[in-house]
């Protein structure tokens, strides 16, 4: 028959659909049988958690959009109406607000996993770069969304961040006016931010599809960082990782629920419950927690263009990590020095976050500059050099046979082959 897929579906209706558009075959191949390394730890759960977070954000966002008014004079009040008058509006709003934080938590841990276990290395370089694109899209989306409630922080964050572009020589001022649609952040700005905030998540969704597709070409990395050598090293995705991911999902949702129901405004700033006042800047402008490290990097340089360049540079440098890291060994488990440097990086980023939450004065300026310096030194100098001089630990033979006797010596005899799980 012309071009029809040979479907394995037994049900005649499903088979009819599947032979014309193989969605069931695809689900079977990619999410049921897909051979997945059997040694995943819970760090491998976070990609799925991020996807769930995206779905939650889109769903709650669409329903909020039914009642939100993107007009200067009505935006703040429309959010209060959602909170007070719309059935379950308070719940959907708090889920959306804290969902953003959960989305970033999951993503940052997901990125840590990538850096620690060398998931960015050959052949997953493109997968990694798509991930960096996702991070940038997420940052943009979160920024646009934060402006919408039109509180004091919303308005002044919009002013500060759009003003960054005035650092561009010659055309900076015109660009900022073009972004604003006026001479200051105002109604045109709010309207277009709403439109873009609705759009970007669907771009994120599209790039997530590319990200997962790229992953399914190369297959997943694993905590040992060594390639899958035989089907013995894998298990079918379902039921092993569908169930394991469900456990992780439950923990994720518990944390989410604690935030939403017991501390919904803990991660937020009280000043955003004050309606925007273009004539009065709050004493401290602070972004949400997930932007604090970038904020600290921005403020670490006294020069405007310098600060902006470093801010974007901090993200751009991530694109090049697959080539900056010269080590042939993937996983930090077998890289004793890199492992320690990764811990330093984590502490550094957290420290940058703390710096970002303080006013740039006194000791915080020094700490901020040192921490910013380390961030770039780590990626631009330490990674390339380390690959050349580090002595990695001996890699295991395979995922199935990870145990190498101390001090070398003969490996244990081969175990009798067991029948594997039917894919």
């Amino acid at each position: 028959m012309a071009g029809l897929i040979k479907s394995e579906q037994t049900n005649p209706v499903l088979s009819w659909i599947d032979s014309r558009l193989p969605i069931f075959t695809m689900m079977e191949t990619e999410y049921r049988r897909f051979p997945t390394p059997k040694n995943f730890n819970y760090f491998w759960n976070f990609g799925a958690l991020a996807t769930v977070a995206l779905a939650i954000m889109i769903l709650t966002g669409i329903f909020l959009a039914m009642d939100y008014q993107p007009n200067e004079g009505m935006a703040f009040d429309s959010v209060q109406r959602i909170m007070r008058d719309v059935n379950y509006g308070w719940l959907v709003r708090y889920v959306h607000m804290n969902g953003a934080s959960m989305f970033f938590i999951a993503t940052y841990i997901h990125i840590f996993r990538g850096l620690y276990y060398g998931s960015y290395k050959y052949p997953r370089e493109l997968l990694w770069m798509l991930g960096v694109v996702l991070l940038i899209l997420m940052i943009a989306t979160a920024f646009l969304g934060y402006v919408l409630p039109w509180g004091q922080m919303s308005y002044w964050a919009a002013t500060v961040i759009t003003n960054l572009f005035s650092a561009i020589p010659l055309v900076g001022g015109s660009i900022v006016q073009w972004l604003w649609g006026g001479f200051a952040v105002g109604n045109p700005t709010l309207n277009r931010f709403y439109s873009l905030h609705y759009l970007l998540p669907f771009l994120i969704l599209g790039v997530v599809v590319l990200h997962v597709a790229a992953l399914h070409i190369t297959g997943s990395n694993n905590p040992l960082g060594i390639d899958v050598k035989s089907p013995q090293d894998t298990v079918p995705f379902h039921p092993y990782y569908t169930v394991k991911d469900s456990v992780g999902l439950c923990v994720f949702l518990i944390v989410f629920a604690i935030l939403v129901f017991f501390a919904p405004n803990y991660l937020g700033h009280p000043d955003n419950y004050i309606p925007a006042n273009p004539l009065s800047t709050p004493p401290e402008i602070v972004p949400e927690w997930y932007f604090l490290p970038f904020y600290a990097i921005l403020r670490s340089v006294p020069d405007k263009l310098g600060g902006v360049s470093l801010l974007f540079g901090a993200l751009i440098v991530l694109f090049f990590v697959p080539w900056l890291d010269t080590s042939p060994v993937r996983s930090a488990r077998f890289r004793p020095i890199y492992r320690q440097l990764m811990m330093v990086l984590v502490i550094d980023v957290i420290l940058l976050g703390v710096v970002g939450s303080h006013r740039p004065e006194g000791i915080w300026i020094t700490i901020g500059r040192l921490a910013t310096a380390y961030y770039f030194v780590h990626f631009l100098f330490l990674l390339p050099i380390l690959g050349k001089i580090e002595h990695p630990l001996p890699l295991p033979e395979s995922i199935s046979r990870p145990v190498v006797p101390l001090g070398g010596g003969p490996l244990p005899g081969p175990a009798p082959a067991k029948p594997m799980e039917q894919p």
Partner: protein
Amino acid sequence: MMDEVVVASGFPRADHAPEEAVGKRDFLKLVTGATAIVGLGAIIWPLVDMMNPSEDVLALSSTEVDLKPIAEGMGITVVWRGKPVFVRRRTAAEIKQAVDTPLSALSDPQPDSVRVKPGHAEWIIVVGICTHLGCVPLGNKPTDPRGEWGGWFCPCHGSQYDTAGRVRHGPAPLNLYIPPYQYMSDTRITIGAGHQEGCGISGCREAVAGNG
């Protein structure tokens, strides 16, 4: 090494304890599935309910109408909850016509007495939305056609209502809805009296008598 049987489902089963192993697995699957469905419901309901009218919409808007300026045989249109409401003062002939109509002649039988308040038979107050597909019938302005029964005439598909707002002809299935209202005095009414729920497409159908 015990023999393992790989079943079509792909899960190896230990031969020595098939019933227990399978029973426990079935139980776990059942409980997981049930929890997932309950969870899904708990997620879907708030989102669905969020689309229902919110508190500020449900919170009653009441419209006060001063009846003094309305002459006999004349009517006005007021807005109540975003809908037109016809307030018409009937002549004695119109009242008689409405009262004398046999119920068998009505496709939606209602005696005139339930469509007005006791002691105020000259005032007919109906939601001005045709019960067919929602157009606003003509008949309140002096220049409007009122149809054969002297009430209202809907230009969209030709439904006609009598002086009690009851449908007499055309595709409309029901009489014009009576909104909840009360007489504050003989010349003043308030339309809308209390939190309304469960109203239909063009209003809340309820017996007016006994609402006072």
